């Protein structure tokens, strides 16, 4: 079979220069010179009305696109490696795939993307925005006002980053209250709460969190990273509990908050213990690494992507397509998720073997689904406030950033019914 594939590829190479094959294979293994822009190439082809396929587990999760002058042009501009494939060669590829844990998923429609981001956040402070901009994938920034006005319904995919949905602004108040940037951030948030008729910031953020929950329940795709993962669930479960410290809403946290949390409202977690001290830069014991808490901070290791059956579990397979299975870990406000805090039914996509935490999780909620990835920036493992932004042109083959972009393309897939 491999011989057939080899012969087909050699025949392909012998095509006269300029001759068009029927398809372009975008390899996603080590032959790809720019993995991140390959996602942009695929997304924009779909956006222009083309149909494609995601060849799960085939050469690092390759894409198959029609061979058009425009797609070739974009690939050339972005330095994305493509290989022309005619029908016999494609047949050989399919034959090769049928014998292994591989499958082809049709890609039909470019999802409409929204990124929940505050107006004061520089675009380079969010790994997803960095990835989208670098890959050339358009997105719409939204914030509290748009969420409250129901704009989420206009999007197929929504991303959250390190927003603190408990309304405590990441508990930065105690350490950074004198910093100009923090004062401006706080004021902007307070102004928005007032404008939208909320008594305080925690009240606004809890309501925003609930709107996001409804969006997922109605069929939306949610992707969250860093602190947004943990605080979204805390805000949902604590909808009717005072979980914010006094500096945020004028009243101390409910001393029995743990017991009053309603975890049935949460997406991913259950039974977490809330951090009651305003002096400790942590929200709960969901995060395994506790990067900002002396005495609790755990060292970074590596995490391993799980292998799923491409034919029987295509959704999880799409989310873990990568040319590396073991990836260096990276800190964030929330870096990882403790196993004992995960709800039953949550799919673990990546974990650190032997550690009590996992890195990357996915689940369904209502008609939609969500994916959480811990950490701030896959290419800046120790990222701290004030650090320079990551320049992705220096990391065009980043396996960590590929996980983010898998999520972007995931809603483009026409899901096949499960065979089991």
């Amino acid at each position, binding site marked *: 079979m491999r011989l057939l594939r080899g012969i087909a590829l050699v025949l392909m190479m012998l095509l006269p220069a300029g001759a068009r094959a029927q398809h372009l294979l975008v390899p996603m293994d080590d032959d790809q010179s720019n993995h991140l822009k390959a996602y942009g190439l695929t997304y924009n082809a779909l956006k222009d009305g083309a149909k494609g396929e995601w060849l799960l587990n085939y050469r690092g999760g390759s894409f198959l696109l029609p061979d058009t002058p425009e797609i070739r042009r974009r690939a050339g501009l972005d330095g994305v490696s493509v290989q022309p494939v005619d029908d016999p060669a494609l047949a050989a590829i399919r034959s090769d795939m049928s014998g292994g844990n591989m499958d082809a998923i049709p890609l039909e429609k470019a999802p409409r993307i929204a990124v929940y981001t505050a107006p004061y956040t520089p675009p380079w402070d969010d790994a997803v925005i960095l990835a989208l*901009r670098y890959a050339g994938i358009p997105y719409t920034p939204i914030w509290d006002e748009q969420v409250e006005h129901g704009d989420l319904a206009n999007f197929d995919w929504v991303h959250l980053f390190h927003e603190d949905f408990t309304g405590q602004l990441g508990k930065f108040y105690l350490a950074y209250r004198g910093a100009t*940037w923090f004062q401006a951030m706080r004021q902007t948030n307070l102004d928005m709460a007032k404008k939208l008729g909320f008594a305080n910031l925690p009240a606004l953020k809890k309501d925003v969190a609930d709107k996001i929950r409804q969006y997922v329940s109605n069929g939306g795709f949610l992707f969250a990273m860093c602190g947004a993962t943990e605080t979204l669930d805390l805000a949902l479960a604590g909808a009717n509990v005072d979980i914010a410290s006094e500096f945020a809403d004028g009243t101390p946290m409910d001393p029995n908050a743990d017991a009053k949390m309603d975890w049935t409202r949460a997406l991913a977690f259950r039974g977490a213990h809330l951090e009651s001290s305003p002096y400790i830069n942590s929200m709960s014991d969901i995060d395994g690494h506790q990067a*900002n808490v002396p005495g609790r901070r755990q060292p970074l290791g590596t995490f391993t992507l799980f292998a799923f059956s491409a034919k029987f579990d295509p959704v999880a397979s799409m989310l873990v397509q990568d040319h590396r299975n073991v990836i260096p870990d990276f800190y964030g406000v929330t870096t990882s998720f403790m196993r004992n805090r995960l709800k039953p039914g949550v799919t673990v996509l990546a974990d650190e073997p032997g550690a009590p935490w996992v890195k990357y999780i996915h689940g369904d909620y209502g008609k939609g689904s969500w994916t959480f990835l811990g950490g701030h920036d896959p290419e800046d493992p120790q990222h*701290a406030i004030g650090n320079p*932004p990551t320049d992705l042109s220096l990391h065009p083959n980043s396996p960590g950033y590929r996980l983010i972009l898998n999520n972007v393309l995931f809603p483009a897939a026409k899901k096949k019914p499960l065979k089991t």
Partner: protein
Amino acid sequence: MMRVALLGALAGMSIGVPLTVQAQGNTPTRPQGGEAYLRGESLEDRSQYPEAATAYRQAVSQAPTSVAAVLGLERVYAQLGRLDSLLPVLDTAIARAPRETAFRIAQLRTLRTLGYSDRMRAAFEKWRHDVPNDPSPYREFARTLIDAGFTASADTVLREGQDATGSGRDFAYELAQLRAAKGLWAPSAQSWREAVAHNAYLDQAAIFALAPTPDSVRDAVERALLAPPPTPQALHVAAALHLAWGAPRAAWEVLKTLRADSAAVAVWLDFASRAEESEAWLVARDALVAADAARPDARVAARAATDALSGDDPASAAALAANAERTLDSATVARVLLPVHVRALGALGKPADAQRVMEAYLPYLDPGQKADAGRLLAMAWVRAGDLDRARQMLTESGGDDPATEGWIALYSGNLAGARKALRPAADASVERLSAVALLERTRADQSPDMGAAFLALARGDTLGAAAKFEQAARTLPDAASLLLASAARLYDARNADAQAAAIWKIIVTTMATTPEAPEAELSWARSLRRGGHAADAVTHLEHMILTYPESALVPQARRELELARSAVPSTF
């Protein structure tokens, strides 16, 4: 040296300096532990760590409070991955010498390295309990926390320390570090000012910490550092920061206010070296002039004149050289000042004056120096446009220099002569390589236009040279694209964007198959982006990448494309 480095590594960069100084200060001339200690040291130097550990352990058992022996044990245990074993040793040492700071610091350091955060906190609590009113426990624990990135906790510890000891000054260094880590730049500068006033050796730490200050708050940082009454240490830090921020003139404006004593001369000379490294030639010149005025030195004066010349101020260079010559003996002038003086007068277009100066010191020159001076004088005549006198100078100085002859041939338009003389020359300068590249692109043996272009360049007339290269392109069609590209590069160098872009455009539109075409299109696009025409820049960059996919410039073009599309941060 290795021990100091190891200690630095253990302590972490940010706290390495004070710790090292402190440890050395506490080390007796002959360490307690005697022979065993010396044996440990010797074994450690030979990287025999297990044996060194045995020796140091013996030294510690003989003298449990020997700082040198305990720190030696710490170093080798770190090498052996056995730091756990150091903890009981430290417990014993601390029990016997509870006021010995080095043991406490080593304990915090070891616990941090081992990741025993709770025990580290407990060690700190015990230390502050043992030495009430002493700022050291707070200071050292805060340093450890800052180093580990726990700025909020460090803040709390320092506040506790200030409350407990009633002193803010004792914590200036830690507060400065902490505030810088938190982006509180102006308050950090205030603390650094206080810290360096009492510990001058902290100046480099201050510069390192404050260098990342964002543009918007740099004025506030400067105000904090220079608040009255000014201190020399704070002035030094402020000047170094201006230099790091690319504002050498502002740096000098700060430093020139120093009182002109021997310490100031040392600072000015150091500053001049830094300015020269940044190619801020005229700022370096000013610092050297100030240093020379305070403490006259012929070499410093010559350096000032050379810097003036490098900074395109030949009049100042000539004046500085002439001034210094009045106070020095003729032999020193001939050796140190004459070359720069001749070059300066040549650059001013005064070859006759240059010749007079050289002739005055001719008796003090050996044949080699005479030949060198002759070449300089020949180039002075070249700059004045008198090529015959230039040739005469070369002949009279007795130097056999084919390269200079080749240049003079080129200036005369004798391309064949220039080709013959310059091609084999060993000189790998950009100027020679550029000239040879052009000479190789044309078969013509004569071209007064090309000669005139190179002559204008030698005379420092960059824009004139660019215009003449354009003119030469019309008469040498086989080298036209390279001549035009040379002209455009010169316009670019002089920020004459419009002229450069016009030429790049000609190459792109009418010489698309020449080797210069990819460079032309990339440069044109860059010019468009600089001018705010990002969409046009994108069009040309896309065209360049797709038309010349094999060009070595394609990665640069892709990078430009990403910047033009705002796909990556533009801060890089």
